[in-house]
């Protein structure tokens, strides 16, 4: 590949992810508004929010690690997006693959955890303790899904997975071939995104007892950017693994937004679970579904 094309892709892929991610945040709010019979925010509201948070006069920092944590939170996702193929652009997906992508998305969580820890607020630390516990919960079904998918396609290269699915049509899509794993993946995604009923570790409704307690101004702005990337990554990864990736930008975006609409809609009609209950639930139903799904695809 021409190095100029590659350089352009490496710049464009995170940029696209950010813009689509903002649109996804907007969709999330619009869905919430529809379900609650409100009008909802205007089109550019996510952008306004980021600008507003960055422009605030009071920017309270608790030290260098607090700031570096935010840098890692954004930077980890910027890097991860170049491993996630989109129509027409593969970036460096061939150099990393599925497992590397999965671990790359843990860097932002690590950054956030370090940043919150430096804030010296026990409420924040409790939030991180819950967030890591939740990770231990939803990652178990997630890795079962990852294993199943990688084993089924016989590769961990995402580009090859997309090619296989697109060559064979809808019948060879991951969701058609591995329906149980696709359902388990949805469960895991709900936990990964921290949406209701699994949102207690983010605790957005009672900010004083969650990880965000000391985050204001552009610190919160940075995390907002991270959320855009996070929604995008989860949706696109699901589309890549189970729904044949994007043939072109139109189907790619339709699929991604449709996938994301599922957890967001579920979130708006559910109450929440305590962290332990989350662990118990994640280790039971999606794991059973996932193992059953594995049993079908293993020789």
């Amino acid at each position, binding site marked *: 590949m021409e190095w100029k094309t590659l350089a352009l892709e490496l710049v464009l892929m995170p940029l696209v992810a950010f813009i689509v991610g903002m649109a996804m945040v907007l969709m999330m709010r619009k869905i919430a508004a529809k379900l609650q019979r409100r009008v909802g925010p205007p089109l550019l509201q996510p952008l306004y929010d980021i600008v507003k948070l960055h422009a605030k006069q009071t*920017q309270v920092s608790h030290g260098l690690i607090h700031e570096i944590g935010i840098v890692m939170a954004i930077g980890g996702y910027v890097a991860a997006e170049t491993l996630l193929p989109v129509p027409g652009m593969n970036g460096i997906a061939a150099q990393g693959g599925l497992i590397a992508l999965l671990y790359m998305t843990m860097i932002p969580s690590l950054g956030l955890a370090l940043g919150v820890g430096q804030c010296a607020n026990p409420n924040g630390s409790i939030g991180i303790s819950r967030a890591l516990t939740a990770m231990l919960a939803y990652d178990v079904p997630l890795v079962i899904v990852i294993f199943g998918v990688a*084993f089924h396609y016989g590769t961990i290269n995402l580009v090859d997975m997309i090619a296989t699915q697109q060559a064979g049509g809808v019948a060879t899509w991951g969701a058609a071939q591995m329906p149980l794993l696709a359902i388990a993946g949805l469960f895991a995604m709900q936990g990964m995104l921290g949406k209701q009923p699994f949102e207690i570790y983010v605790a957005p409704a009672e900010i004083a007892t969650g990880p965000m307690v000391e985050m204001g101004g552009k610190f919160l702005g940075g995390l907002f950017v991270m959320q855009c990337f996070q929604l995008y990554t989860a949706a696109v990864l699901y589309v890549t693994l189970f729904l044949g990736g994007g043939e072109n930008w139109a189907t790619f975006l339709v699929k991604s937004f449709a996938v994301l609409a599922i957890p967001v809609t579920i979130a708006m009609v559910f109450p929440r679970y305590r962290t332990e209950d989350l662990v118990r639930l994640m280790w039971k139903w999606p794991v059973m579904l996932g193992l059953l799904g594995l049993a079908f695809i293993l020789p």
Partner: protein
Amino acid sequence: MTPVDSLFLVSGLTLVVALLFGRQRLTASLLVALYGAQFAALVQTGTLFGDPVTASFGVTVLDQPMHWRYDALSWFFAMITIGAGFFCAWYAAGVWQEAHVKRGHSPWLFHVALAANVFAMVVLLGSGDFLSLFLGWELVSWASFLLMALGGRASGRAALRYLTYAFSGAMAILGAMALLYTQAGSLEYAQVGAAIPKLSAGQLWVLLALLGGGFAVKMGLLPFHLWQAPAYAETPGPGSAFLGAISARMGLYAIIVVIVSMVGVARLVDLSIPFTFLSGRDLIAWIAALTVILPTYTALQQHDARYLLAWHGIGQGGYMLLGLVVGNAVGSAGGLLHIFNYALTQAALLMAVFAVVHRTGTADLNKLGGLVARMPLTFLVLLFGIISLAGLPPMAGFVSKWMIYRSLITEGMPLLFVAAIVGTLGTILSVYKLIHNIFLGQLRLEHEKVPEAPLSMLIPMLALSTLIFLAGFMPGPALSWVAEVQRLVGLPQVQYSLGGVVDPRGGLDMIWLVSILLAGFGVGAVVFYGFGGKSQQVHQLNNYAGGHFLTADVRYQYSDNFYAGLMHLIGPWYRGAFRWIEDGVGGVVDLLSYAMNWVYRSVQPLVFLLATTVAMLVWAAV
């Protein structure tokens, strides 16, 4: 004189210098230079990429020749051993030694113990037959005991417990050697290697149980792992870092020599366990997987930083064995590479923790906090270390763990894959607690004037951190060593490039990944620092306390029972079953020894003699 002779000579010389001049202050620096010389002597042997080299001396015991030689496998392990010795001696050479003396300990004992450990391991790694293997094995056991027993009462108890385990293990190995001798008529590797394929399944199982059990003791594999954490954690500073980095891997070396190289993974796969679907390989893989999971989750419950890391050391050993017995090119390379990566990581982590102990006097995770403001470089070392230990990019640990995961997918082993990742997740939880409770959160009043770790400790720590990063950024060189080891022991060789693993079905190129990650951080920094208002730093007590008024005398750090929610759920699963078994076995041995004591003391000596004579006559008659 062959190059191997010179290696033994330099290593022995180091020990002699430590013995004779260990009391002088300047000797410490001389010893560092001597470890460097050992490293140079090892490189001089050229056995990694070249042919094996034999030592010119040898002994004959009871018509059994004992000889020593170095090959690629010995080179790989000796390189890590001597490297660990070098960095630990460097760490010990300056302020640490002065403080050690001030606490009333002898620097002489420490230097001698460390030099003896390195020497014993160099001898063990050069063994050319089962006799020299056993000799080296015993030397290593006693040398580690010496180092473990240095730290006072708690360490003495832990060291004795280790010795009990080590003796039992050595007896098992001796039994296995007797079995091999009867079958092969020799204790030479070549003859034994030729005889092993002819063993029946039953004999092979006995051999695996005896040898595997004996080697597993040193390696700390389940169920023989209980001694390791206290013994390693209670050893003084750099000694602990040395033991943690490499000592337990001697067990793995022996496992590779006998079980991977002589028996072979293919034979293990053929060896089925009656009445189950499992093979010998599955059994070993599951022992390895349980060794990953159980000690890791025990580490999660520790509130002493040293113990936490020592428990992780046991768990990481499980990954190495898991990768090796999976046995394909990528998996076994991952297992071998993890030995190197883990040694770098664990040495750096323990050094950082002991630097904190040096400055604050405690490793209790409930009595520290906020030290990042006072010891930023030590924080950096610990941060690099935990990222590597948890197996996250961009550090070294990620590469080797990635290879192990990759091989489990290729081989279609879903449950082992999940087990390996569950171990990694437990590690992430546990190391976050480590760094949070020491360096993040609120700085305690008594630590407000704590200075950064002394330079003599910092330099080796930072050097190790640099290596951890470089081994993650460019795993190629380390992979080239590993590929040579694979060639030697008859495993398929991994295809590698400078940046990582080449695999048509999804490889890994760390140069790309790390570069893109650093570029991502650059973008993040531009977004954060380039736009918006300027941030202002505030005092640590200036935070949102939900209406409480904070003062410096209020404890405001969340550290104890850090994962309360999780423990609420999985807490009852900690049953201490292994401790219970250990107590049980200990009780039985106690009882037997009391019985023997009673027979010996209270029964008439004549009766005793009569009984023995009758028994011997019966034996002779049969």
